[in-house]
């Protein structure tokens, strides 16, 4: 049976067909939907981890104990998981283990464009790179065979377009795989130096054997179109190259890409007059071919960054110009994403914005990074998950050395980021007598990636009721004495907390407590705790509106200023009655709409 699946759905299907026993992940675009889809196959045990390092470590444990295991993460997540990965590369596996890295050429929703194929080479582990959904499924199944045969974790490298594009997949049957009995294996899994030194040689031996496999792997093959030009490619770039060149060139399609097949590449290069290497991001294949002494054309012609879409290839290799309808740039302006109507971050950033001249804001990864834009302009830094507390601490120590600058550092991160790596950062701040104002924007969900549950939501991946981490309790246990919990939609309360924290000369934490509007599931406790949540609407009394536009500083997309009448109105279809604009209006022109009270 054929079904149209995204690459992420196809990976989940492959995990099912390969009888994987254990799967873990931390959400991150473009990888998030893999675990969400795995969780729909009831026999696979799957869980969200608080971060990528934990996800991989649990998968390592599951493999050692004799199950097939799986972990998925976005490219930068592998940085977090790199510590266990590099030693797991030495120990090898008991049950097969696959690590998916979902890279982002073009950085659609990421902070960098790192090419994680380099991790396979760096950690000395085999790598597979699918080009479409069918390969995503088939290669996952084969990855488990390879993992167990060659005793290694497999790096499975996907990219945004492979993850998120849909194509037809021929489904297969599930192959039953039994759990392997556990036997203590000290010489394999206890990586003390004496054993590490032995394992190091084993790794070299494995990669040498895999060099032979790579030459004959079914994933590495030539398509001979009797041409003068040859193209070597992998991943989605292979599909793009096919689109651009069709059968006017011959191809060497590489799917098993660490170690690369030296003879296949060498013979291919010798056969054609001209050879292009078409790959997104780094010159990974190109450098290998050049090391073999081959005269190939790569990054000198094709861009080193961004997506290698067919138009990019055509422009570079065929000097083709654009032939479509021209844009008229006067007809549109930007449409950047913004905080949703009802977003609890809005009230907080509105109040914090009033202190703009007195503070420096260290930001973090999550929806609140949208505060970089208009009208907030509220972020000085954004580095990686969990970095706001710790980078803010470092900034504050330097600012204290400056006699002519008394600005304070405010650091912000969300609940999921706090659980991810924020807790460690906060420990550092209080331990080292820091003086930053740390804000945990608790919207009770992992918002940016599409409302996944986390240790603070009370539900696990299987949607079972689970322990709710008490953020305030954790902060107190770390040793922080100055803690305030506020309703961010109450501007006075929020303002008071910010002023209170700015007066203190020791580490403080403000927890904003209001749920995400997009959260899919609320329970009775939520409605009891958050009074009249989403049940009311606000409206403008037109006669009282002076057109001063102060309310627009709240940045709510439901407020519309009409230039012809110089009045603001509120979109009744989208307003959820958070009252932030109502509190801002200096003329009391915004009131509760009594139809909804």
């Amino acid at each position, binding site marked *: 049976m054929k079904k*149209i699946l995204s690459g992420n759905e196809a990976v989940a299907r492959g995990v099912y067909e390969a009888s994987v026993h254990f799967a873990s992940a931390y959400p991150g675009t473009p990888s998030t939907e893999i675990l969400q889809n795995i969780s729909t196959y009831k026999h696979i045990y799957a869980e969200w981890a608080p971060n990528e390092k934990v996800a991989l470590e649990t998968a390592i444990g599951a493999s050692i104990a004799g199950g097939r295991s799986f972990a998925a993460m976005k490219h930068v997540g592998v940085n977090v998981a790199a510590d266990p990965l590099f030693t797991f590369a030495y120990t090898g596996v008991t049950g097969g283990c696959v690590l998916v890295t979902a890279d982002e050429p073009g950085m659609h929703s990421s902070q960098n464009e790192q090419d994680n194929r380099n991790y396979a080479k760096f950690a000395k582990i085999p790598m597979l790179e699918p080009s479409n959904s069918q390969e995503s499924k088939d290669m996952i199944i084969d990855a488990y065979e390879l993992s167990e045969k060659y005793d290694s974790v497999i790096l499975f490298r996907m990219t945004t377009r492979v993850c*998120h594009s*849909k194509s*037809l997949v021929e489904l297969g049957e599930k192959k039953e795989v039994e759990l392997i009995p556990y036997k203590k294996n000290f010489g394999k899994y206890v990586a003390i130096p004496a054993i590490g030194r032995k394992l190091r040689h084993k790794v070299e031996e494995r990669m040498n054997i895999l060099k032979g496999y790579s030459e004959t792997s079914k994933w590495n093959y030539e398509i001979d179109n009797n041409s003068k030009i040859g193209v070597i490619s992998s991943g989605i770039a292979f599909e793009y190259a096919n*689109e651009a060149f069709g059968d006017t060139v011959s191809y060497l399609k590489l799917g098993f890409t660490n170690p690369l097949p030296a003879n296949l590449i060498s013979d291919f290069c010798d056969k054609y007059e001209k050879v292009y290497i078409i790959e997104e991001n780094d010159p990974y294949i190109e450098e290998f071919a050049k090391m073999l002494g081959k005269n190939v054309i790569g990054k000198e012609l094709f861009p080193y960054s961004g997506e290698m879409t067919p138009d990019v290839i055509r422009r570079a290799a065929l000097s083709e110009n654009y032939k*479509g309808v021209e844009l008229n740039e006067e007809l549109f302006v930007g*449409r950047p994403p913004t905080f949703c109507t009802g977003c609890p971050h809005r009230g907080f950033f509105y109040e914090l914005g009033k202190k703009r001249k007195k503070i420096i804001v260290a930001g973090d990864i999550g929806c609140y990074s949208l505060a970089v834009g208009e009208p907030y302009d509220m972020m000085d830094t954004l580095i990686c998950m969990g970095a706001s507390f710790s980078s803010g601490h470092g900034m504050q120590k330097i600012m204290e050395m400056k006699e002519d600058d008394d600005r304070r550092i405010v650091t912000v991160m969300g609940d999921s980021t706090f659980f991810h790596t924020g807790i460690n950062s906060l420990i550092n701040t209080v331990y080292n007598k820091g003086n930053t104002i740390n804000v945990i924007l608790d919207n009770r969900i992992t918002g940016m990636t599409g409302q996944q549950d986390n240790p603070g939501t009370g539900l696990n991946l299987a949607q079972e009721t689970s322990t709710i981490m008490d953020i305030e309790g954790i902060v107190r246990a770390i040793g922080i004495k100055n803690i305030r919990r506020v309703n961010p939609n109450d501007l006075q309360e929020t303002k008071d907390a910010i002023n209170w924290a700015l007066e203190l000369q020791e580490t403080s934490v403000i927890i904003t407590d209001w749920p995400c509007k*997009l959260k899919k599931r609320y329970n009775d406790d939520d409605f009891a705790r958050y009074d009249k949540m989403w049940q009311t609407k606000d409206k403008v009394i037109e006669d009282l509106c002076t057109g001063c536009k102060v309310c627009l500083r709240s940045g709510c997309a439901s407020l519309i200023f009409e230039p012809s009448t110089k009045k603001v109105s509120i979109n009744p279809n989208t307003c959820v009655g958070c009252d932030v604009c109502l509190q801002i209006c200096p003329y009391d022109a915004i009131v509760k709409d009594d139809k909804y009270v």
Partner: protein
Amino acid sequence: MSKSIKVVGVGGQGTILLAKILTTVFVEAGYDVKMSEIHGMSQRGGSVSSEIRYGDKVYSPVIEKGDASILVSLEQMEAARNVDYLKKDGVLIVNDYKIHSMVTLNGNIPYPDTILEDLSNRVKTYVIDGTNKAVELGLDKVMNIIMLGALSKVIDLDNLKWEDAIRENVKPQYVDINLKAFKIGLNEVK
């Protein structure tokens, strides 16, 4: 040969459902199909797009600029932003509706008012009163299916089972109103 259709709009307008039904229709008719969309910011008022390519054999899941046969836009400014995806002889189907962005919302920069005029002078364009027709029908959300109806008329292939695809992709209680919306859209293209 493969053909390309791009669907654009603003987060929350139903671009993804429209693209999903379109994908179903081509798959059921036996075409090779690839569909691509960028997730992430779409729920937060940003621009959204989906790309569908179909034919005997499709390689790239993304549409090259200047290569789409049809551009469906659920919002005016998004049509202007994406019109360079169309071939010179491509067709634009645009919903006559404006959604402000944070940039135009505060009134400092006006929302451009000559979009439809400019585009219809340069491209074969069908302007559909989708949002109003959907509100008249009693559910503003079915605007996307009105646009799908218009699109089906422009595609004009008799091997496509549109109503089956709608049934497959919407909740049972919304099937009837969506089928009505589809017919309205169909009749909007003369």
